[in-house]
């Protein structure tokens, strides 16, 4: 396959959600003979029956390639996965492991193409829940609970574990390629409604919180008349309905202030920067 084949598999011409597919991870693939580097996909995932009900769209906010795997499992049920990964690839020692996502996209391209999904198949928007991975805590802080995805160091999934563990000795610095999701990354509520979507399910793992950068998007959809639900696939698909916070304007303001603070310090508002080595 060449990179255009991979992109076309995920954003086929004529499919009604293809326009929203983010091209950045596809554009940085090699021109020809694109092969996944290390992806072994597990697409035999448990799918909640509510996800495949008519009029339902999904936002899969799951860590890294997990999002791609669940997306592909959903494709077997006639749902169109729409990758919205916005992080920059190609930088050495990237903080967000985009390579695994990229490999998963490549590895699943042929399978997705073979599924020949309907042009108007309902969408599952794929996000990386680690896109805004918090800044690493100092090690002496210790883990705060036993959940395996709670340790922010581990969440970065470095490719070379040994090098990562010895990062203090190596004085290693990691490139901050975190990103945020914007309202303009998605179709509007009006468009979703016009295409028969009535309910939106946000799928997360070990959390029923809406990430800060998704609040405005969900609120816009809610205003357009969609019902919103959050499901936690880490806790046996526990689900809760969601309504926008009463002080949404305050939340927006707060989030606008937080973006430049939480993403690597840069008073210009730019997100990038190298993280210093961990304190020991």
């Amino acid at each position, binding site marked *: 396959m060449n990179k255009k084949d991979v*992109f076309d598999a995920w954003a086929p011409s004529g499919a009604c959600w293809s326009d929203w597919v983010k*091209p950045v991870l*596809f554009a940085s693939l090699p021109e020809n003979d694109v092969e996944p580097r290390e992806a072994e996909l597990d697409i035999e995932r448990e799918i909640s029956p509510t996800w495949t009900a008519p009029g339902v769209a999904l936002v899969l906010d799951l860590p890294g390639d997990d999002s791609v795997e669940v997306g592909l499992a959903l494709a077997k049920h006639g749902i169109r996965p729409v990758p919205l990964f916005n992080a920059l690839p190609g930088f050495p020692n990237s903080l967000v492991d985009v390579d695994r996502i990229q490999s998963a996209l490549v590895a699943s391209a042929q399978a997705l193409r073979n599924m020949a999904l309907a042009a108007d198949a309902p969408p599952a928007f794929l996000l990386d829940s680690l896109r805004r991975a918090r800044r690493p805590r100092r090690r002496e802080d210790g883990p705060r609970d036993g959940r395996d995805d709670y340790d922010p160091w581990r969440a970065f999934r470095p490719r070379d574990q040994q090098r990562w563990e010895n990062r203090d000795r190596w004085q290693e610095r990691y490139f901050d*390629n975190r990103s945020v999701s914007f*309202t303009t990354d*998605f*179709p509007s509520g009006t468009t979703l409604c016009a295409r028969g979507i009535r309910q939106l399910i946000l799928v997360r793992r070990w959390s029923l919180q809406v990430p800060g950068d998704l609040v405005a998007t969900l609120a816009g959809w809610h205003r357009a008349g969609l019902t919103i639900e959050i499901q936690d696939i880490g806790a046996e698909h526990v689900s809760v309905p969601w309504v926008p916070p009463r002080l949404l304007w305050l939340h927006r303001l707060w989030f606008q202030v937080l973006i430049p603070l939480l993403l690597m310090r840069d008073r210009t508002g*730019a997100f990038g920067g190298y993280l210093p080595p961990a304190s020991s």
Partner: protein
Amino acid sequence: MLEHCKWDPQVGDRATLAPFPVFISGADWAHLAGLAEKLAAETEVAERELLQRRTLLKQLGLPRALQREFARAAEVGEPPSFARVLRFDFHFTREGWRVSEVNSDVPGGYSEAQGFSSLMAEYFPGHHLTGSPASTWAKGAALALDPAGEIALLSAPGYMEDVQVVAYLASFLRAQGMKARLVGPRELRWRSGQAFLAGAQRPLAGVFRFYQLEWLPACGQPGWFHFLHGAVTPVSNPARAALSESKRFPLVWRELRTPLTEFARAMPESCAPREVLGRFDEGWVLKGSYSNCGDAVFSNRWTSAGALRAAWARALLAPSGWVAQREFEVAPLETPLGTMTHCLGVYVIDGRAAGAYLRLSPAQFVDAYAIDTALLVEEGA
């Protein structure tokens, strides 16, 4: 999208690439290109004079740290520069072509003007491109710099729309046989006036700055002032580009010795916001001095009362950060997507017109949600 580094083809519900081109006659294009070249020549001379006029710098709304370093640049001299690029925003009105502003510091849109337009031109025989700004810029860089050296293309990481621009230009540098590296501000080091990549032994041949100058003081990177003075590594664009980038640039014209006759003819009247405080509804627009993509452009016609009040409060609290510009009526363009307003960006590289593209908007002014459109010249017209 994949070949021409266009990574933001969809913004919300709007596709940002028009499925049709707009044609311009050869005579009109020649007129616009000539006008843009004259404006570019005036811009260059005015910037050089401004650099020596410290009192005028204060009026442009520059951060204090930059004013200080520009004053130093006037004393010790600027770094060498290469491949100067400007983009003038033209609008067709009943009175002819008007210019709303010059994107002098970090103009983008190369992929839309060259890559996208050339793809469109393949389907329209008898029409040709207005130019190839990315190729022209890369050739200019290759001529000016050490061909065996490495060029760093500086942008703000995380800003996808900026990184796609430098990635596109890097591909043209590589086609010229040069080495190109995309970097963020923290990867640059300055030693004895020479720019290096972090950890590198060999100095860079040049630095392309796609990073707004007014951001540099805040980035906290030691040596950032080398972009303004004390460096021997060539940079593009020169730091003084930020002087004409200011939307308050027209406010200092009358005090300059440089005659700006083309600017005075083509650009609408501008003044300090407080001068129009009581008569803003007589057709004025409020603009931030260093606004981008229409992110701080306010008018009675398209801004809600609350947002306009907030903008005025900011303008009165920090007057040097704002300018009032006389509104002008842009001729509407009938397109397959409906009636649109437009903005035609003309590139000038090293003094010569190098291409153009059009941005369309169904709204009343052209902003970041604009639809990029290929502009093709009708042959023989």
